[in-house]
């Protein structure tokens, strides 16, 4: 077990390095235009471009730039443009503010949004998935599977707008939930959670539907296994057979999916929900940064997001070894 975890951790660290290098290549090596001009915006003067060139040390040879960049991310050392660790540079359009500060400022909103949505979609998907598998082809099974198809097909931005139109306190027909931008005016955690009720449902809807279908198909598979027959032959109650023997096996691959989904959502994949509901999270920040071509900010968020995904992958791997004893002895 210890060896397995050590190996996973080392591999994840290597992964972080590789991801950082790829991001460097995307932002500094691959663009055919001068990186300083790209960062300066559309109506920059030659003097401004020169300032950016200097602040990013773009006159250094490429390998030196790369070493500086990696030092800025991974070590607490001085670099040409600043001091690490996690120095992603400064934003160009937000008063030269450090990118890291902007991200850390936006992260709590995203974190709250994602956490609530995850709890919600798991709470919906697990019972729906199990029951529709156990009662396969029943009315309940067919109803939930068709409903889930509807939610999977509905785009998040559309669903968000419909939800607002129906339920938001400012514009809704049945004004029972806080509306657009209410997160920004909430001053405590409870009020913020309240303002996120609608976004939670919107973000969770499609995912809950996908998870319910996935859990259902996993359960259908597992329930034909020989060890389920053994469990029944022991005289266990059907409830125990389904939950302790069936679901226990079916949930393992779901954990993998969950880890990746949470990672990508924290990395800014909640962009549509955040934009529709005007939630000041990482996703809406990246939308703004793309709009204004704030390259250092985009680069910082991409790197940060990639880190989240790598870290959640690691968590999944470790969890997997805990859940499936066979993995530990690979």
């Amino acid at each position, binding site marked *: 077990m210890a060896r397995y975890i050590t190996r996973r951790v080392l591999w994840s660290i290597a992964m972080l390095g590789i991801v950082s290098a790829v991001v460097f290549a995307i932002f500094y090596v691959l663009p055919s235009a001068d990186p300083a001009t790209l960062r300066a915006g559309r109506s920059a003067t030659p003097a401004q471009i020169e300032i950016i060139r200097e602040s990013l040390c773009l006159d250094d040879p490429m390998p030196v730039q790369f070493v500086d960049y990696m030092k800025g991310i991974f070590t607490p050392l001085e670099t040409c443009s600043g001091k690490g660790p996690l120095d992603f540079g400064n934003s160009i359009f937000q008063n030269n503010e450090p990118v890291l500060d902007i991200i850390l400022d936006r992260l709590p909103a995203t974190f709250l949004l994602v956490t609530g949505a995850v709890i919600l979609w798991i709470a919906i998907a697990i019972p729906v998935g199990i029951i529709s598998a156990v009662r396969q082809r029943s009315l309940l099974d067919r109803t939930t599977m068709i409903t889930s198809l509807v939610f999977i097909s509905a785009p998040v931005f559309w669903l968000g707008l419909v939800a607002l139109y129906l339920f938001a306190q400012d514009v809704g027909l049945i004004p029972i939930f806080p509306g657009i931008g209410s997160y920004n005016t909430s001053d405590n955690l409870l009020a913020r959670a309240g303002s996120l009720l609608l976004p939670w449902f919107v973000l969770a809807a499609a995912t809950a539907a996908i998870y319910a279908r996935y859990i259902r198909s996993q359960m259908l598979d597992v329930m034909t296994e020989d*060890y389920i027959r*053994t469990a029944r*032959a*022991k*005289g*266990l*109650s059907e409830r125990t057979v389904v939950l302790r023997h069936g679901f226990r096996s079916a949930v*393992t691959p779901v954990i993998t999916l969950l880890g990746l989904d949470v990672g990508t959502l924290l990395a800014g994949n909640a962009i549509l929900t955040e934009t529709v509901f005007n939630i000041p999270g990482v996703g809406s920040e990246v939308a703004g940064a793309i709009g204004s071509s704030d390259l250092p900010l985009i680069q910082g968020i991409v790197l940060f997001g990639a880190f989240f995904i790598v870290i959640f992958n690691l968590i999944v791997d470790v969890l997997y070894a805990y859940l499936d004893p066979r993995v530990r*002895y690979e």
Partner: protein
Amino acid sequence: MSATSSAGPVLEVDEMRVTFATDAGAVKAVDGASFQVERGRTLGIVGESGCGKSVTAMTILGLTRAPNATISGRITYEGSDLAQMSDEDLRAVRGGGISMIFQDPLTSLHPFYKVGRQLVEAIQVHQPLDHDQARARALELLGLVGIPDAHRRIDEYPHEFSGGMRQRVMIAMALSNEPAVLIADEPTTALDVTTQAQILALLERLQSELGMAVVLITHDLGVVAEVADDVLVMYAGRVVEAGTVDQLFYDPQHPYTWGLLGSLARVDKRTQRLSQISGQPPSLISAPEGCHFRPRCPHEFGKCKSVPPLAPTAADDHRDRCWLSLERKRDLRQLADGRIGLEEPK
């Protein structure tokens, strides 16, 4: 025949029929199987894959119950009919009075739980023991089935055991509540030959120690010869011959049984070639009318278009399902080299 109830059969199956509705049609998996087992005796059920022997076994414990399954007949155990029992009541019998082990020990244990936990679970469903007591019992069972170093192995996962050891764990689990009947569905098929012999020896020892009735399902006549007292030969959902092991091997009545015996390879006799049964078993959706074995039987004649009854011919306790007369059978089953087999009459 016996007047005292204690000497009577512990499990009695009467006219069991199991049909599964499928998209392709109704599958008559078991078409009127009747048999009984007594304490301390072993009943072997033999036949090719798909002949209904596993379905028969699983139906005893209600494991074939499903929305698309129709089950009829009587399954009498301790005075009650298991076929009519509610799932709730049947659970008390499963793993309690009647327990079962399966073909593939690699997949029959839950891969995520330690062996000890799975044993403790089986014990606690039927006995009011706390965890420590159940664990002590589990250790005792692992010792009983001959797992060395049981106090250490009880905390291991199934994948850390070899195939033979896993089957021993399955047997320990099946014995945990001292069942009156043990149903073993191809218990040695997935194991290599030396392990097979060990598992069979273990089953025989446990049977004589615990006095259980054993129902052994197998496609292997060698296994039957070794451990069974009585034998049931099944073909395409029907019992075609039933008798003691000696009757079956030395005086087989049904042409299908001749075919099975003729295709046995023997190490003690050098034969020119093994006789074989030509053709394939019929589909259970559209089995031929009359005798199911008719299309593959070289001795078929007009009468075979109607279903022969399972009736005693050679002896009172030796029944078979064939229209041929006793004399004809004794004549036809003898091959040129003196062995028994199924071949075109000369």
